[in-house]
């Protein structure tokens, strides 16, 4: 293979990437810019909130609890070396609200809800349900995609908030109940360190961004899947891989922006 051919392959790859980006951008724009029909779409949205939000609750609560327990235990052992174990509340709350809450929730969300969305929409496409909807004059973007997107958009911050509260409670359990840090100092150190706007609101903004990116990737991969069994499998894998990478990369960018005093 000559160098020119390799260059050509690279060019092809670039074009493909660009085309995919453009297609997904148009897809998102089509999804967002449309006349709202609140009355008709509300029941669809509720159903998706149930599948995306309520059914993810168990895994979110359980992993939140264990992450809180581990952070509490690790933090206590390290802080104790400096005789600063009273600061445990601050350590747990800040690390959970700022970083672990949004990021871990988004990763779990991509694995639990994102992959399911892609597989569902992909199967609908390969069994030509989407095409038959169009034949009946029902817009599949409105009927299938839009409620799923908004469901993910709304569920994600709620899940992140629940995750954070459960994780902080886990830290409290290890630090105060088990290892005997003073309860009053635990909470007051936390309250003096955590700022509502800088920490909690920014964490929620992060999780809103992650939620929309993850669901966007999931519904686009499903809608754009190659309609074969192999294609659905590949699309599901792509959803999990791309959304995990997007979450971790965006987390760095958002943190840098927020630390810059935004």
């Amino acid at each position: 293979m000559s160098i020119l051919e390799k260059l050509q392959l690279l060019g092809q790859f670039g074009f493909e990437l660009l085309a995919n980006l453009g297609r997904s951008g148009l897809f998102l724009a089509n999804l967002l810019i449309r006349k709202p029909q609140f009355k008709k779409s509300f029941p669809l949205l509720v159903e998706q909130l149930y599948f995306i939000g309520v059914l993810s609750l168990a895994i979110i609560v359980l992993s939140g609890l264990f992450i809180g327990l581990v952070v509490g235990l690790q933090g206590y052992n390290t802080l104790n070396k400096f005789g600063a174990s009273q600061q445990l509340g601050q350590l747990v709350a800040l690390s959970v609200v700022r970083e672990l809450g949004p990021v871990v929730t988004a990763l779990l969300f991509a694995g639990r809800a994102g992959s399911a969305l892609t597989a569902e929409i992909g199967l609908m496409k390969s069994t030509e349900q989407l095409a038959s909807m169009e034949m009946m004059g029902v817009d599949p973007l409105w009927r299938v995609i839009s409620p799923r997107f908004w469901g993910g958009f709304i569920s994600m911050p709620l899940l992140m908030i629940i995750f954070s509260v459960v994780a902080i409670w886990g830290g409290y359990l290890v630090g105060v109940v088990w290892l005997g840090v003073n309860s009053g100092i635990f909470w007051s150190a936390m309250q003096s360190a955590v700022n509502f706007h800088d920490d909690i609101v920014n964490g929620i903004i992060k999780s809103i961004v992650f939620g929309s990116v993850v669901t966007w990737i999931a519904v686009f991969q499903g809608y754009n899947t190659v309609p074969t069994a192999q294609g659905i499998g590949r699309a599901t894998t792509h959803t999990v891989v791309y959304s995990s990478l997007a979450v971790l990369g965006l987390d760095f960018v958002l943190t840098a922006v927020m630390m810059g005093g935004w």
Partner: protein
Amino acid sequence: MRERIIEILVGFFMLFGILALLVLAFKVSGLTSAVDANGYNITAVFDNVGGLKIRSPVSLAGVHIGEVSAIKLDNVQYKALVTMKIDSKYKKLPVDTSASILTQGLLGANYISLTPGFAHTFLNNNGTVQDTHPALILEDLIGQLVFSLKNPGGKK
């Protein structure tokens, strides 16, 4: 029927999320200030406030009675003008109360400690604490110590 159950569960989910947000706001970040709305303000002028911040606690005999509500620079004297909001339960602070900036533990946060005087008149709203002690800056102390160790018995 199934629709109804789903809607109820989603309602629970939303409610749960909002409750959790309230826990984050009030229990974790302490958005509510401990001082009630009809507390009163007193001011004090310090040479140096060190690491004192807005919402740092104000205590008397170790009891939390209020918090710092504003820190400004007095442009004439080049000193820090600190406004404290004191809970309305503690109305009777003598006028000769003194204020000092202390540190919680060796590396902890700064707070203001009030020491009551003996006068029979009391500070009212926007009253000024006259007797103040600035924050101890650890680096300055170490600098002085090193200096005095280098010149033992030397002239000042």
